């Protein structure tokens, strides 16, 4: 395993910015086409009306809100993981943090789209904004949907800044290595960065403050998203466990998303010298811990419901355990618990391939988890008059599917225009002073076994 230094770090990490292969255009064309299809489908929904979706009384939340919760969960990959690794000064974080932070920003942007898609009439989205309006419809600050607005926007602003600040020195590197219009653009983006000690200290202090601030915000965001459910008198929703359960699930799916993104970047951008197997192994261990935590929360949720034996809740319970939703439920259990437990628990399987397979299982499982929280409960509330079914239509499936392509497209474009691994942080890790040597170096971690 080689450790690139100085000029080689520059040339390796700037290569995707200065060289464009046919693969890039192919990827943009494929994923751009799918995103285009999703946009056309959304426009068709707007034009033809919300009736083209499968959302009917009493199940008013379907694929769109499932995808909203799922993407907000994925967004926990970046900023939260990056902030924690920065605060504990984990040396192996350096090639990982930016890959992770980018996921947060794009996942939040995509997630925040879904409530607008779900509205049916997106031009009235501003009615959701909590501003004192001349229509005398004052926002209800006691509504979890208003809390969502504040929490998601705070997290989005914080995550964008948390991503952008450490990029400034790298914009300066690109500026120095380029000519013409590109030099002017990156020069403007570098905001006059030169690399004086004052600038480095201010930047590091700012990153530290933001890391401290962003962790409680990240936790609050998914707690608030869970309040959308747990504040409602719906069977299996009105429970105090939803806050931590959602946060754990979000971190879980976020790590899985990060592992997949890292594996793809490593393969296609030839970053084998930067994203080492030890990075995957460490994140794989984290995935294993989160799988166990997820299993613990599910056990708690299920056992308390079962022991309470409340008729309406038990109806939903059995629908998911052994009736119509059982195939989805047990697929979720396999994807979220069994697969990661086997692949990440046995050291021999904790390879890059093993991590990717386990992560795909977790992504599928976590999407199903959100679906199974929403639909079975809404379709079987307390009184028989409110029982109903939900069948997603092609419109919803295409729009929800296109957001995965949108995520990939945004990631590809980002990696084309910004170094996907922080150049200056890698260089700073070359010669750490004795007092700054992180407790968990790559060599040490190689000897750790779970």
């Amino acid at each position: 395993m080689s450790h690139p230094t100085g000029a080689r770090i520059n040339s390796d990490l700037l290569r995707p910015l200065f060289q464009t292969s046919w693969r890039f255009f192919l990827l943009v064309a494929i994923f751009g086409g799918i995103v285009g299809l999703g946009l056309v489908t959304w426009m068709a929904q707007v034009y033809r009306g919300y009736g083209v979706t499968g959302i009917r009384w009493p199940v008013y939340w379907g694929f769109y809100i499932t995808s909203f919760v799922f993407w907000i969960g994925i967004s926990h990959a970046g900023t939260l993981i990056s902030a924690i690794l920065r605060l504990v000064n984990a040396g192996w974080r350096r090639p990982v943090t930016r890959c992770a932070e980018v996921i947060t920003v794009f996942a939040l942007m995509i997630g925040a789209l879904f409530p607008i898609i779900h509205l049916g009439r997106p031009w009235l989205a501003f009615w959701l904004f909590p501003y004192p309006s001349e229509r005398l419809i004052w926002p209800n600050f006691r509504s979890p949907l208003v809390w969502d607005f504040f929490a998601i926007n705070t997290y989005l602003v914080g995550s964008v800044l948390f991503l952008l600040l450490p990029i400034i020195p790298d914009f300066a590197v690109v500026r120095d290595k380029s000519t013409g219009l590109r030099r002017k653009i990156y020069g403007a983006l570098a905001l006059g960065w030169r690399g004086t000690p004052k600038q480095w200290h201010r930047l590091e202090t700012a990153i530290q403050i933001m890391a401290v601030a962003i962790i409680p915000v990240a936790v609050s965001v998914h707690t608030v998203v869970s309040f959308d459910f747990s504040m409602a008198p719906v069977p299996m929703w009105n429970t105090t466990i939803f806050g931590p359960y959602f946060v754990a699930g979000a971190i879980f799916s976020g790590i899985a998303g990060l592992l997949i993104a890292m594996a793809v970047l490593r393969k296609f951008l030839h970053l084998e010298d930067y994203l080492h197997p030890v990075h995957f192994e460490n994140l794989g261990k984290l995935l294993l811990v989160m799988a166990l935590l997820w299993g613990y929360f599910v056990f708690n949720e299920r056992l308390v419901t079962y022991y309470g034996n409340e008729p309406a809740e038990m109806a939903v319970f059995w629908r998911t355990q052994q009736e119509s939703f059982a195939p989805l439920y047990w697929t979720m259990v396999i994807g979220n618990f069994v697969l990661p437990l086997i692949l990440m628990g046995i050291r021999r399987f904790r390879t890059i391939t093993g991590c990717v397979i386990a992560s795909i299982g977790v992504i599928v499982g976590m999407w199903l988890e959100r679906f199974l929280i929403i639909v079975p409960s809404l379709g079987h509330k307390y009184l028989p008059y409110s029982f109903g079914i939900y069948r997603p239509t092609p419109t919803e499936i295409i729009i929800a599917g296109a957001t995965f392509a949108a995520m990939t497209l945004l990631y590809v474009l980002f990696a084309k225009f910004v170094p996907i691994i922080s150049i200056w942080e890698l260089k700073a890790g070359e010669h750490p002073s004795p007092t700054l040597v992180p407790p968990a170096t790559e060599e040490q971690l190689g000897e750790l076994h779970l």
Partner: protein
Amino acid sequence: MNAQRPTPNAQRAVYGLYPDGQAAQQAFNRLRAAGVATSDITVITAQPMEDFEFGNLDKATWMWWFACLGGLIGMSVGLGLSWLTETSWPLNVGGLPIFAWWPNLIIIFELTMLGAISATAVTLVVSALLPSRGRTLYDPEVTDGKILIGVENPPDGAIPDLEKTLGAPPGARVKTV
């Protein structure tokens, strides 16, 4: 020798490029021994170099306090927005209090953090980035790992001495612009 304080748009400078931290530290020490004030020495590096003395200049910052101030402002806005809005249009929801602390704490918390985060970013831009826009002393070789130690706007007669001082450490390349 006492160099003039650099102006926002430096027209002239003498600097050395060094291959490693030890050589750069030597140049930094020699400049100070020659009478150049620490505040007049320009240091530019491609990464933070806090394990050397020259990398620890200008470390003191009020950024934490500004972040706290931003948080306080955010908290006030959160409190004011929820209080004014709810009391101006009192919606009676099942006899619940018009202004209740529990739900409003979420709004207040989020705006507090938003204030702190925004204040941090603004402080960084205002204190460290804007002042260096338009400064001329920079060498793109820094990007390749060289360390720049120099003096901006030196007095006319001091340039030969500065070139000699900066050229002494091993591997130094001195430039005058």
